[in-house]
């Protein structure tokens, strides 16, 4: 009996430690795999521990649930393409938060329907439970909307109507009001379910007005909410492994969103409450200046073929065009010809942290040839050709030169210092920030229009025959 408790607690403690070790492993690609195996082992221990609990009277539904979940999870894990990562992440936030919310509801239900002594439903428990349920609920629906937007099911462009902010604020206020009431009167069932519903609704209204471009930041925040929800569950069940894992999760989400903002230089507040507005509406930008020089594919091929050093700067466009494999092909072809090929990766290129790294890794580009902002910027002056593949904002010199630009101060890849720049894009389309990009008008910049994938495929063969 006593022994069993010890075993359970021990397995939880071990799990917590293994989770921390697992995340520590992620500090280097060499140790990352081992780290994950530790974390997986930790999770197994935690599950075994949970299965040992005395309260458990029947295992049927547990086992069915585990089986169904594993099948779904495995399927997801195997089939989801790397390019759909953002959607998948959003979806899994929804799942995680929903689970947390359900646990909270079930707990409350067991208290109010006499399965657990109602007297034990004290103020403290209720506050923790309230947090768990509110965070869980709003994160669930919020993440679902985010998923919809990223998947294109829900219209990506911000849905805005007059008095929206006021309404959202009021809704939030009511929800919190109910929460506070519940803390003092935990047994008030109707307020409880009202609060629950409102939280669900609030999640929707919170994310709907946000442009799909802003999703990554929102998602990271939802991530940390989901984490905090699990942590709150831990407080309710006074279960430490839940608290620890939840907190770690919450922090990673928080830190990632901070990093993203810094790299996009938006203030944290702007993001925390920017959720009530939308970046896409910033837009503007001061029309054409000068003209763009279009270059022919063959010229570019020759340039590349006879260059000393070429730097590829991939961006969101590479992701949408699924061009990562062709990029790698072109890289190999050039290296075979003795050209030094490097990849310049901006921290917020693409639409999620590390987006470009994963895509290129998928295309077997060794991470040793991916260079971060600080490493690659000094190299541009000695670079013959920079190939900008569907990147825009991350190479926008205005961020550096024009203090009035909305993205002023955002660190950029200074490709304009290179001897010559070739930009691959489909047309006049703007980047995520919706700004004009002076780079395209510089004398040493040439535009090569067309879908990145097609263009690159053509380039490969052209280079081979150059």
């Amino acid at each position, binding site marked *: 009996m006593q022994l069993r408790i010890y075993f359970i607690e021990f397995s939880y403690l071990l799990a917590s430690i293994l989770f921390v070790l697992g995340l520590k492993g992620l*500090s*280097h690609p060499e140790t990352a795999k081992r780290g994950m195996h530790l974390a997986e082992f930790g999770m197994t221990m935690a599950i075994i521990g949970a299965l040992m609990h005395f309260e458990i009277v029947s295992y049927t539904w547990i086992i069915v649930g585990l089986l169904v979940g594993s099948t779904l999870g495995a399927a997801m894990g195997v089939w989801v393409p*790397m390019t759909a990562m953002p959607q998948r992440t959003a979806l899994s936030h929804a799942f*995680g938060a929903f689970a947390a919310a359900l646990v909270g509801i079930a707990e409350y239900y067991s208290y109010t329907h006499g399965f657990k002594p109602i007297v034990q439903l004290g103020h403290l428990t209720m506050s923790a439970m309230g947090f768990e349920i509110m965070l869980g609920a709003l994160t669930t629906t919020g993440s679902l909307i985010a998923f919809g937007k990223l998947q294109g099911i829900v219209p990506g462009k911000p849905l805005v109507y007059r008095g929206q902010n006021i309404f959202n604020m009021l809704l939030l206020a009511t929800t919190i009001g109910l929460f506070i009431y519940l803390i003092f009167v935990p047994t008030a069932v109707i307020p409880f379910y009202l609060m629950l519903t409102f939280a669900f609704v609030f999640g929707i209204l919170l994310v709907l007005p946000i442009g799909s471009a802003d999703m990554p930041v929102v998602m990271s925040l939802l991530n940390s909410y989901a*984490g905090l929800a699990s942590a709150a569950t831990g407080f309710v069940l006074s279960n*430490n492994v*839940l608290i620890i894992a939840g907190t*770690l999760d919450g922090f990673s989400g928080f830190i990632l969103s901070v990093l993203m903002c810094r790299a996009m230089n938006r203030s944290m507040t702007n993001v925390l409450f920017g959720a009530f507005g939308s970046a896409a509406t910033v837009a503007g930008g001061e029309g054409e200046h000068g003209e763009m020089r279009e270059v022919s594919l063959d010229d570019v091929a020759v340039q590349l073929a006879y260059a000393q050093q070429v730097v590829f700067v991939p961006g969101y466009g590479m992701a949408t065009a699924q061009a990562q494999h062709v990029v790698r092909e072109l890289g190999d072809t050039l290296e075979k010809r003795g050209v030094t090929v490097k990849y310049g990766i901006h921290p917020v290129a693409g639409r999620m942290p590390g987006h470009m790294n994963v895509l290129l890794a998928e295309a*077997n580009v060794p991470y040793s040839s991916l260079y971060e902002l600080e490493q690659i910027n000094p190299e541009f002056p000695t670079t013959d050709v920079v190939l900008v593949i569907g990147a825009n904002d991350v190479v926008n010199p205005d961020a550096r030169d024009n203090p009035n630009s909305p993205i002023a101060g955002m660190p950029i890849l200074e490709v304009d210092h290179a001897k010559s720049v070739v930009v691959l894009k489909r047309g006049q389309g703007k980047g995520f920030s919706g700004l004009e990009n002076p780079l395209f008008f510089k004398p040493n910049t040439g535009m090569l229009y067309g879908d990145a994938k097609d263009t690159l495929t053509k380039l490969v063969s052209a280079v081979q025959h150059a």
Partner: protein
Amino acid sequence: MSSESLIAALYVFALAAFLGYQVISRVPPLLHTPLMSATNAISGISLVGSIVIAGSGHGTVATILGFVAVVCSTTNVVGGFVITDRMLRMFKRKEAPKK
């Protein structure tokens, strides 16, 4: 929840928060996407809570809620870890400098 257990929980929370900050802030941008899916998997820990509820037979409602919770969190755990492994397997060191 007794005040003692609340306090204990607060300590664990505070320390975990510090630790989270220290550990996560050391993850290089290269691995940010794997980090995201890894933490997804770990956040599936609510499975622990779900299992107990799904099994403790506190009436049909609770059991159903628990069951759904188990499904959701298991999906996260398995999916998260599978994808993370998949991603990490893709990250390769340069075989031999080609320049």
